């Protein structure tokens, strides 16, 4: 039995353990009393907050149960927010507004006024908007625009095609792709420009970089850029995330540049380095988003994401990295669409992850957390009557926050037909603010909407379906074997096909497309397209040429050294850190491919 098989067993065992505890609470009087005591204690300590209309509300809503068996079921099967197995949330207060005026109930039930002056740490805003366009300086300007009203600067970087495929802007036939769909990065100098003006070492700053194939090279460039600006001491304080998810690339997104095993090896090299030297960095974002967008069902999305996560954990542990060191640095990224499963998809994922990490990998509390970034579904948005997309995204946002996501990106309504424009990006960001800040749904009570009977039904059903997927992958020999066998790829493609067919057949209603269609022609506005002007593309090519010319001699030596390290199967990350100082992304990719080969596409 591989680790994934053990995870299935651990969940089954845990579910049985919950039932045993329920039974014990009902039969063992002593145990029952203890539970009841703890329950009453929790209830008594819940702070009360007053809404703007004067209504008192508890900051934590506990279910109205007073029977020891049900209390046991709640504690063990769900856990309070921030408690194992984290069904209700990885952390406690999450979206709650900072306490201004709080009352807490004393034992006798008399409210006690507490001063609001005590400085409570302000939570980070969960907003993190994905952006990247044209050249580094243009994206930098966009970053400053997006964060102008934010306490915390959480950037999310999209790269252009050549960068995602690890090739240079001067490569044959990519000129028109420079700066399209993301920012063009060729060298460490571009990386310096990209985050100019932001304090990379500050606790209020974090950078997310959505790139996987060449992730270790880009990570090295980021570190090198930070060192150029702030000196070598900045490295341990760098905060952020790099996607680096090879499995999902092979399963869904097709941006893999080295053979799978070599890609995994470079990834592990990077993780080994960052967990040791950059304790605040998330070196991998285990992503279901692209699996979902490629057409998977929600269950497939969660099952493949989680199983990929367990496979990475197994790999990093095999390298000798302590689980409690890398475990807390794993993060997840899920899609949130409109299917019923999304009511509880992330909740169930959090629970499976926690149990598997604890009981199979022996992870401590911090390494059990399924830390989640969610993005609303791009695939659910359509061009026809596109303003409906605001409603779709709003509903998805609601679901994402009901799942207690740690951060969220809301899509722009104009995405189906263009690069998001500022107007619609603003509306998308405001959608989150309206939900979290303006509305009272999430800011007063941390688990306002969890635990409805319907939600529980979805949870049970989704969990069972995810475990079935795990069993199938296990049967195929584990995640890597299943990936090489194209199992996940085929399943995703099949689901995508069925989805399209359902739209075509009308079984899946899409308002404005196959139902309530407006007879009038498209209402797509004249869009001002954000396209990279040729002059800018040429500027990028020229800069790169200058960089290459300047460093020609040094680059040769650095590449030889890198190749040598890779041939000897040593950790290549230190050599990468040296190489990015004098080599371009494409030079490094090319040299690595000479040693380990290129990825052979799966079709």
């Amino acid at each position, binding site marked *: 039995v591989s680790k994934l098989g053990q995870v299935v067993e651990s969940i089954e065992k845990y579910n049985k353990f919950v039932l045993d505890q329920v039974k014990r609470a009902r039969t063992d009087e002593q145990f029952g009393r203890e539970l009841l005591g703890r329950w009453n204690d929790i209830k008594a300590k819940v702070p009360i907050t007053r809404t703007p209309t004067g209504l008192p509300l508890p900051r934590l809503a506990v279910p109205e149960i007073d029977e020891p068996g049900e209390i046991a079921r709640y504690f063990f099967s769900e856990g309070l927010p921030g408690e194992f197995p984290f069904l209700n949330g990885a952390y406690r207060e999450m979206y709650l507004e900072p306490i201004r005026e709080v009352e807490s109930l004393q034992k006798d039930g008399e409210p006690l006024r507490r001063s609001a002056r005590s400085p409570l740490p302000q939570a980070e805003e969960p907003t993190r908007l994905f952006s990247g366009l044209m050249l580094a300086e243009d994206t930098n300007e966009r970053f400053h625009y997006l964060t102008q009203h934010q306490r915390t600067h959480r950037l999310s970087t999209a790269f252009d095609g050549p960068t995602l495929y690890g090739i240079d802007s001067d490569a044959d036939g990519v*000129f028109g*792709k420079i700066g399209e*769909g993301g920012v063009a990065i060729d060298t460490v100098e571009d990386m310096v420009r990209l985050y100019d003006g932001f304090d990379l070492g500050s606790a209020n700053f974090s950078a997310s970089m959505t790139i996987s194939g060449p992730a270790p090279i880009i990570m090295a460039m980021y570190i090198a850029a930070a060192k150029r600006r702030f000196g070598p001491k900045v490295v341990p304080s760098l905060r952020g995330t790099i996607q680096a998810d090879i499995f999902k690339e092979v399963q869904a997104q*097709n941006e893999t540049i080295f053979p799978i095993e070599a890609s995994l090896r470079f990834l592990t090299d990077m993780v080994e380095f960052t967990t040791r030297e950059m304790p605040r960095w998330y070196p991998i974002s285990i992503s279901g988003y692209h699996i979902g967008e490629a057409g998977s069902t929600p269950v497939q999305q969660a099952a493949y994401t989680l199983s990929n996560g367990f496979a990475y954990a197994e790999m990093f542990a095999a390298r000798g990295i302590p689980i409690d060191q890398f475990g807390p640095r794993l993060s997840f990224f899920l899609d949130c669409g409109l299917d019923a499963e999304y009511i509880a998809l992330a909740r169930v994922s959090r629970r499976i992850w926690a149990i598997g990490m604890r009981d199979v990998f022996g992870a401590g509390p911090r390494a059990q957390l399924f830390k989640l970034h969610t993005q609303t579904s791009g695939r659910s948005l359509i061009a026809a009557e596109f303003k409906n997309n605001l409603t779709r995204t709003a509903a998805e946002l609601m679901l994402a926050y009901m799942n207690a996501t740690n951060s969220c990106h809301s899509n722009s309504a104009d995405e189906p*037909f263009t690069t998001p424009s500022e107007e619609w990006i603003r509306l998308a960001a405001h959608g989150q603010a309206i939900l979290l800040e303006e509305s009272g749904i999430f800011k007063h009570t941390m688990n306002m909407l969890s635990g409805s009977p319907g939600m529980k039904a979805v949870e049970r059903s989704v969990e069972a379906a995810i475990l079935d997927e795990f069993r199938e992958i296990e049967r195929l020999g584990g995640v890597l074997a299943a990936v090489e066998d194209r199992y996940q790829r085929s399943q995703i493609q099949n689901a*995508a*096909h069925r989805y*399209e067919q359902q739209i075509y057949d009308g079984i899946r209603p899409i308002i404005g497309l196959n139902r309530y269609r407006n007879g009038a022609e498209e209402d797509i506005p004249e869009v001002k397209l954000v396209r990279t002007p040729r002059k800018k593309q040429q500027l990028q090519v020229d800069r790169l040429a200058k960089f290459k010319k300047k460093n020609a001699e040094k680059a040769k030596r650095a590449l030889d050294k890198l190749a040598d390290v890779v041939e000897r199967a040593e950790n290549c990350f230190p050599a990468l850190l040296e190489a990015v100082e004098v080599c371009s992304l494409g030079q490094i990719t090319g040299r690595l491919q000479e040693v380990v080969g290129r990825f*052979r*596409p799966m079709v």
Partner: protein
Amino acid sequence: MASPIRILTAVPICDGHDSAINTINLEFIRHGIEVVYLGYHRSVGDIVRAAIQEDVRAIGISSYNGGHIEFFSEAIALLRKRGANDIKVFGGGGGTITHDDAAAMKRKGVDNIFFAGTSLAEMSDYVRKHYGKPRAKRARARSPDQELAHQLTAIEDAYTAGRKRLTLNAHRSAPNRTIENRKSKIENTKVIGFTGPGGAGKTTLIDELVLRFLNQNPKGRIAILSHDPSVIGEGALLGDRATMINSQNDRVFMRSMATRGQAGGLSPATHDCLALLASSRFDYVIIETVGTGQEAMPFQKNGIVDQTVLVMNPDYGSRLQLQKIVMLDLADIVVVNKSDLQRARTAHTEIEQRLEQNRRNQRLIDTVAKRHRDPGVDELFELISRGPK
């Protein structure tokens, strides 16, 4: 009967969005079109080279990552430069290509851009209507490869039209390797036949051999004639190129053929096409075909093929199955690919025993073609380079 329409489809460089094109490909072949699929992340150079070698009527490009105006324009410019104006270009990109973009692209010579919401039927109708007419008289080829491609098309068309028929023992009649008007034949062109069941890894193996060949012979040229099964009068997905990362090279001439109803894994036109390639200045000509090996193979000893390689999967079933595989008697080299699989050791032993019955000194090699620098593939390359015994 007219030949099926042949088109080439691809996704541009730095673009991995292959979901739409996968669906469209299937729709095309359902409507009788032969689709040479080049895969995703493909450069203009790769696309145009393949289109000329495959001599397709049109190129369909599915672009979702931007830069489409430049990409499509570059493709058209390169086709013109190579004298292949008769190969048309069309494409789409969901919502990423605006109407203004499409207008600009049409001005550059793109035939048509399909927008989001276009039905699949509309697309295949368009292709049949615009690229299904018989070709006008062809202009003189601008390069030897283009000329070769035109000649191969002529051979295929002749067979489909019934102007040429395969005689019963055509495979056996050793043709004169010197074909008229081609004086430049390389006397030592080696013709290697690859066969084996689908999924055994033939394409990957050939691509890895090509890599070794290109590295070792800086000026050498190689031709590949690959086959995919199709029913007479229907379409076919010719997808070998999509996974061949080393064979997209100016020194590699590749032609994908659909079997067009012929049993045995070859097309009626294969024999003549192979004869033509064998006399067309290549160092190697590789012919690849799918076969279970249970039928007597087309690569006969007295045919054009100098050396035959049977590629097997360790999962062939029971040991008795091996007795049914006639190709094991005929092949010069037997490869057990995927030898990293658990079953591979048993497979090796069983096949070794089976080959010993023949007392022909056939070679048995274990490979893991998907592995970079696999020593088994090195050994196979050595063996082929040394030539038939």
